[in-house]
């Protein structure tokens, strides 16, 4: 087990180094000069050159890469070209929106998907199963910005229960923030819940056909008991895979939802930075996201090892 964990930690570091190289190279070939963008159409070439020097863009690329990486290791993510403020501070502020939103959405989607998937599996082929499956079909088929807009039309404009978007800030109270995040979280969670419920159901059904479940049933357990006692635990492996994938999607993939609800989240920061060629911000934030996901994957892998002793035994 310890050897397994050490091996995983080693590959964690290699992954991070490769990721930082890929990010830096991809971002640096993007056309568009941040200084020219900031100064607009009337700027004189010497003004642009002066700003490039001020931003440190005249330093060779290799040197910039090393400075960037060594800075990050020490916790310094650089200073945004356009915002002119420290990236770590901006990311910290945005995380206070994006992280709660991702967790909120993940909880919602799990709360919907687990019961729905288990229910559908237990009613295989019957009307309840068909109903759940039809709902999940619809859930995966509706574009999330479209669904978000309908939520806004109904709950913000017609009913006036919540505001159409924006984020009050945590200093305005916990419940005000939760209210502001509810529609975005639902919009993010429902399609995820539909996918999760489908995976849950199909992996449960696969398990129910397994020999050891049949054995259990032969010993006198009902299908329901077999499902709860044996199938569920084993069916969790593919479900955990999907959950791990979904978390990483939710953390950064909410760009569009953040646009629709004008939330000051991490996704919007990156999107804005890309369009403004705020290269250092794009690099640092993408690196942070990649870091977060690699760590989450690492933890998911450890969970596999705990949940499924067969996997652990192999290592």
């Amino acid at each position, binding site marked *: 087990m310890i050897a397994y964990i050490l091996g995983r930690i080693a590959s964690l570091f290699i992954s991070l180094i490769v990721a930082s190289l890929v990010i830096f190279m991809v971002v640096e070939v993007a056309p568009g000069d941040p200084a020219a963008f900031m100064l607009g159409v009337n700027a004189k070439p010497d003004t642009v050159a002066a700003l490039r020097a001020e931003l440190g863009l005249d330093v060779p690329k290799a040197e910039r890469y090393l400075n960037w990486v060594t800075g990050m290791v020490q916790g310094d993510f650089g200073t945004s070209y356009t915002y002119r403020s420290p990236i770590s501070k901006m990311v910290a502020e945005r995380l206070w929106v994006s992280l709660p939103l991702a967790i909120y959405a993940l909880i919602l989607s799990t709360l919907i998907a687990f019961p729905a998937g288990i229910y559908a599996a237990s009613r295989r082929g019957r009307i309840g199963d068909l109903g759940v499956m039809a709902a999940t079909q619809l859930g995966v088929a509706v574009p999330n910005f*479209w669904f978000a807009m309908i939520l806004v039309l109904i709950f913000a404009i017609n009913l006036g229960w919540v505001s159409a978007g924006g984020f009050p800030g945590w200093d305005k109270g916990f419940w005000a923030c939760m209210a502001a995040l509810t529609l975005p979280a639902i919009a993010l969670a429902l399609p995820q819940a539909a996918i999760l419920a489908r995976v849950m159901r199909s992996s449960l059904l696969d398990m129910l056909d397994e020999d050891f479940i049949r054995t259990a049933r032969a010993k006198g357990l009902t299908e329901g008991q077999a499902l709860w006692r044996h199938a569920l635990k084993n069916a969790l492996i593919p479900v955990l895979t999907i959950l791990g994938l979904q978390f990483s999607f939710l953390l950064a993939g909410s760009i569009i939802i953040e646009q629709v609800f004008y939330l000051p989240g991490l996704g919007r920061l990156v999107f804005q930075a890309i369009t403004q060629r705020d290269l250092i911000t794009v690099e640092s934030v993408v690196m942070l996201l990649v870091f977060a*996901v690699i760590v989450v994957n690492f933890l998911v892998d450890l969970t596999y090892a705990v949940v499924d002793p067969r996997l652990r035994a192999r290592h």
Partner: protein
Amino acid sequence: MTRPWRSILIGGALAAVFVLSALISYVWTPFPIDGVDIPNKLRPPGATHWLGTDHYGRDILSMVIVGGRTSLAVAVVAVGIGMVIGVPLGLWAAARRGSWVDEVIMRGNDLIFAFPSLVIAILITGIFGAGAVNAIIAIGIFNIPVFARLTRGAALSLWSRDFVLAARVAGKSSLRISAEHILPNITSLLIVQGTIQFSLGILAEAGLSYVGLGAQPPTPSWGRMLADAQTMVALAPHMALIPGLAIVLTVMGLNLMGDGLRDLTDPRIRMQRT
């Protein structure tokens, strides 16, 4: 008629409507889609324009059937990329579990997957220019680790099963075991995931279009039509409803078909039914 067949037929019929009309659009459309006719903009559905016109006065029926070409092609090719590269990698990793091959493949997958897909899609389209081909690449890359991880995870649990052990004792190579015993047993999982990725592909194209990437004008796509319609919902609801329905119906049709195929091909389910 058995239930799987019913799903396949209903789903297949739904999807076929859109696929066929997309194919027909290569030779014929009710109206040309590159003609702008501003005085006739935002007409509701009627006798001349069956599904109305959009904000440039273009025929929405024609736009939807031509747009299907782009949306379906983007999604199909993106899933294809993911399966063709991802599944063999997953099988290989499972066959050589614990070895450096497994480690490199899986860490490589983790690495791709660790990148925020939409951000990278936006970056890719920002560097190489927005467009359908770059959208396919951007969406396709992120399908690879999905299939690789799924395949490996499912294959791993099969490798410890008795029938695989029997095959190993019989001296079959890892390659043959993967092809003859593992792959057939995970097709159901792959089909379910494939339909999910397919619908995600259509939706990802729509999402990219929403932020102004994806297919470029004058090429229509369902995603771009839907994005264009967002601010006009109050003026002309049909403009948003029709491409939205096209997406929903196609995705549902393909998913139904996928479910049916799964029930049909899964040897264990078939066995149980007989």
